[in-house]
């Protein structure tokens, strides 16, 4: 069962979004794709672009075309589509290009939300409390420089 603490910006500041840690590493949260509510997302900073399960793409009725991705140095053919929107409170992204894959190996995850969407807002992940907070972060040290490097 997924936690339902939807994070929104307010005068009290961002509200933490509870996540489920599946298999001790997957950060899984609820969200919506277009008008498909109650979706289950895996937040994956190592993925560009985001990916949607093919049954969700079919349910949405979006156009799908063939393309190519690389993971661990190996190329594979994938299908791509343009999703009308992705909502992951308080993140909202319109017209998101995403790969279409069989994500059944992720046991119920409807989409992998990649850096193309996640980088639209700073965020913080607390694995101990299992909360993710989107929005401007308080400056703290020590930190290291973050470089956004597209995967070819």
């Amino acid at each position, binding site marked *: 069962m997924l936690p339902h603490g939807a994070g929104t910006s307010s005068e009290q500041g961002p509200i933490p979004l509870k996540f489920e840690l599946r298999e001790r590493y997957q950060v899984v949260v609820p969200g919506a794709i277009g008008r498909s509510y109650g979706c289950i997302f895996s937040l994956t900073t*190592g993925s560009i672009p985001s990916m949607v399960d093919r049954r969700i793409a079919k349910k949405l009725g979006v156009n799908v075309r063939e393309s190519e991705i690389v*993971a661990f140095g190996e190329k594979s053919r994938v299908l791509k589509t343009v999703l009308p929107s992705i909502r992951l409170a308080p993140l909202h992204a319109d017209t998101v290009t995403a790969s279409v894959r069989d994500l059944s190996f992720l046991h119920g995850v409807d989409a992998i939300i990649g850096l193309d969407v996640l980088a639209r807002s700073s965020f913080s992940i607390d694995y101990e409390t299992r909360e993710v907070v989107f929005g401007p972060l308080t400056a703290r*040290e020590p930190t*290291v420089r*973050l*470089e956004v*490097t597209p*995967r070819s």
Partner: protein
Amino acid sequence: MTVQLTLGGRPLRLLVDTGSRRLVLFERRIRDRLPRLPVHGEKLLYHISGTSRLDRVSLPPLDAGGTTFERVEGFMSEAPVDDYPSGIDGVLGVRVLALKGADFDFERGRFGFR
């Protein structure tokens, strides 16, 4: 998204991936810059493009701008990584990120452990 860290005092650049479980080093990218790391077995890694065989290695201290991790479990991949952008030496996964939690500050272009 990458960060520069040091491993045993030697700099390396890792892809920060909240969707990966482990810290994986690309042997072909670091073989000339790191001393040979002791291997303690093998592991098969299943990912979206197939399966990779990894060597389990003992890592020297890992440092991120002053935050140091001792005795971190690491894995070495000997698979071709030509399709990764040059300069990426491996993947920093959740086994390390979850030790302290992680801040991704895109406004300032900074990454930090909590």
